[in-house]
């Protein structure tokens, strides 16, 4: 930058020492620079003198505004309250979802464990390799007290046929001991007597809880199967079904056979078979071997919780009974003796009720239900569309997609409308904050 360009800065005192010396040296040598500097000085002075006077306004208003801005505003309080309200609403709305998710996760975990146990116990069978196996713990059916009698009748047949089950029962005996040990370990004499009677007379098998039903994960499962099989001859299959029911330690609960004579008739039969749970997999395998399996599904009903609960209540009742017996021994007055005996009778009545309930659970767990549908080969079960109607299928698929999209949009609108108490305030607060910030 040459000296002329520094003249204005020199006049304003904005040059460093070296630049200032350069300018002063040039001024001494060049009189025209001095004239130029005089003009700059004159212009600067004129501008300063022409400055428009500006009266100050609004000072007090600004002071007040600044002071009020320093105080906590109501807007902040409202914003905080709004945020708390929104969080509370969201928590209230979504807590059941979280709880449900947790429960669903637990159910899934139980299902996986039970399925693993079921796979390990399922016999290898070529006929079942291509069918679906649906094991779930959904609550199905209700307990039928009369079912226990059927088990008693067929128990001997089952014992002679299913030797493998005994081995499994023995291997799980320690588990049962550990489960029942604390239950009966400190019982009264009457309770001990009851146990000894049971062990001496094993004839009513249903009264003995058999741990063979306990899966690897310690669950007690009532299992059910739904089987559909296409057979060559419905009559011979009917005989085989009855034989399987007899061999499996169970009985034929109900059957329906439709087998009229004639060539164009589709013969069918349906059965409801109760089998010993140890023989469940074997029975399903044997029934599957009757012909071509069309479908099969199995399910399990977990009654572990009920059994454990009954055991715990029984234990408590026996403990109470012991206490009353102790009191009874030390009681001397007739009134005390009568009162204690009365209470003891009540406790024993409740114990008997619980034991009966426990027996019912055991008998329920010992029996599995197989629902079998037979169809004679040549029936209409496997009929497929004669020709591939791709145009019709395309129209149908497009219609399905359209319906799904419409359903989705309708669901979205419903969600938006129902959740409006949440998003409308949030939107309004956001809009209000935006307007305030903008202003």
């Amino acid at each position: 930058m040459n000296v002329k360009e520094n003249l204005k800065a020199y006049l304003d005192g904005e040059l460093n020492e070296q630049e200032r010396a350069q300018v002063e040296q040039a001024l001494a040598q060049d009189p025209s620079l001095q004239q130029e500097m005089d003009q700059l000085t004159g212009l600067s002075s004129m501008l300063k003198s022409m400055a428009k006077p500006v009266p100050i306004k609004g000072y007090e208003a600004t002071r007040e505004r600044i002071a009020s801005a320093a105080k906590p505003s109501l807007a902040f309080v409202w914003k905080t309250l709004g945020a708390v309200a929104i969080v509370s609403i969201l928590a209230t709305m979504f807590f059941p979802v979280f709880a449900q998710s947790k429960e669903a996760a637990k159910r899934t975990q139980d299902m996986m464990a039970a399925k693993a146990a079921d796979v390990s116990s399922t016999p290898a069978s070529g006929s079942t390799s291509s069918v679906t196996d649906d094991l779930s713990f959904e609550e199905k059916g209700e307990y039928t007290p009369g079912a226990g009698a059927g088990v008693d009748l067929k128990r001997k047949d089952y014992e002679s046929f299913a030797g493998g089950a005994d081995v499994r029962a023995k291997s799980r005996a320690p588990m049962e001991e550990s489960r029942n040990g604390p239950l009966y370990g400190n019982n009264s004499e009457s309770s001990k007597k009851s146990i000894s009677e049971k062990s001496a007379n094993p004839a009513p098998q249903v009264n003995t809880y058999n741990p063979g039903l306990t899966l690897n994960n310690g669950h007690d499962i009532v299992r059910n199967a739904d089987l559909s099989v296409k057979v060559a001859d419905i009559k011979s299959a009917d005989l085989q079904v009855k034989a399987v029911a007899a061999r499996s330690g169970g009985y034929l609960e109900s059957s329906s056979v439709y087998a009229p004579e004639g060539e164009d008739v589709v013969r069918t039969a349906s059965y409801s078979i109760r089998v010993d749970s140890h023989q469940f997999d074997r029975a399903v395998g044997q029934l599957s071997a009757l012909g071509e399996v069309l479908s099969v599904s199995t399910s399990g009903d977990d009654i572990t919780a009920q059994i454990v609960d009954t055991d715990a209540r029984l234990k408590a009742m026996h403990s109470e009974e012991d206490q009353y017996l102790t009191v009874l021994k030390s009681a001397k007055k007739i009134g005390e003796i009568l009162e204690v005996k009365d209470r003891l009778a009540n406790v024993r009545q409740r114990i008997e009720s619980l034991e009966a309930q426990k027996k019912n659970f055991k008998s329920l767990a010992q029996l599995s239900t197989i629902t079998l549908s037979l169809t004679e080969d040549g029936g209409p079960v496997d009929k497929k569309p004669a020709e591939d109607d791709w145009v019709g299928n395309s129209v149908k698929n497009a219609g399905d997609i359209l319906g799904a999209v419409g359903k989705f949009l309708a669901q979205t609108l419903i969600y938006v409308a129902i959740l409006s108490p949440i998003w409308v305030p949030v939107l309004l607060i956001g809009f209000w904050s935006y307007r305030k910030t903008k202003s």
Partner: protein
Amino acid sequence: MAKSQAQARPDQQTIERLVTEHYAAVYRFCARRAGEDAASDLAQETFLIMQKSYAKFQGKSKPSTWIIGIAQNVVRNHHRKTKIADVPLTDWLDPATPAHDKEICDRQALMQALGKLSPDHREAVLLHEIEGHTYAEIAEILSVPEGTVKSRLHYAFLQLRTQLAGGLQ
């Protein structure tokens, strides 16, 4: 450390002191660029922003320069909203003020010459000659290098002298 804590939580007395000390300068700054009608609101907005952002003030510059820098942004936003492209010279110059002892040219001619300057050059003249800011302060207010301020003032006065060439004494 103590200084940074004090900056993080400014006491109300400090804020009010800053308002008292700098309100006039800020009001004039706004009035000369946006007119007196809008000056009060713009000055108030400037100090409200200053109050909110005081914790960010690092003390590298003088408080007056920092506050005028805020006012510059406030005025710029006001111009953007109101679509004002150029500030009238009459907002900050008055040819009717008492005459100077050594007037080297006609005032109206000077006004016309100022009107032909670019907005950047005119702003530099306003900040330095009328409002009395140093080059360093102008550089911070306008967020430009100090050399640019020096250059703008040099060329602004060069252009004024050129415009007034015939009338300069």
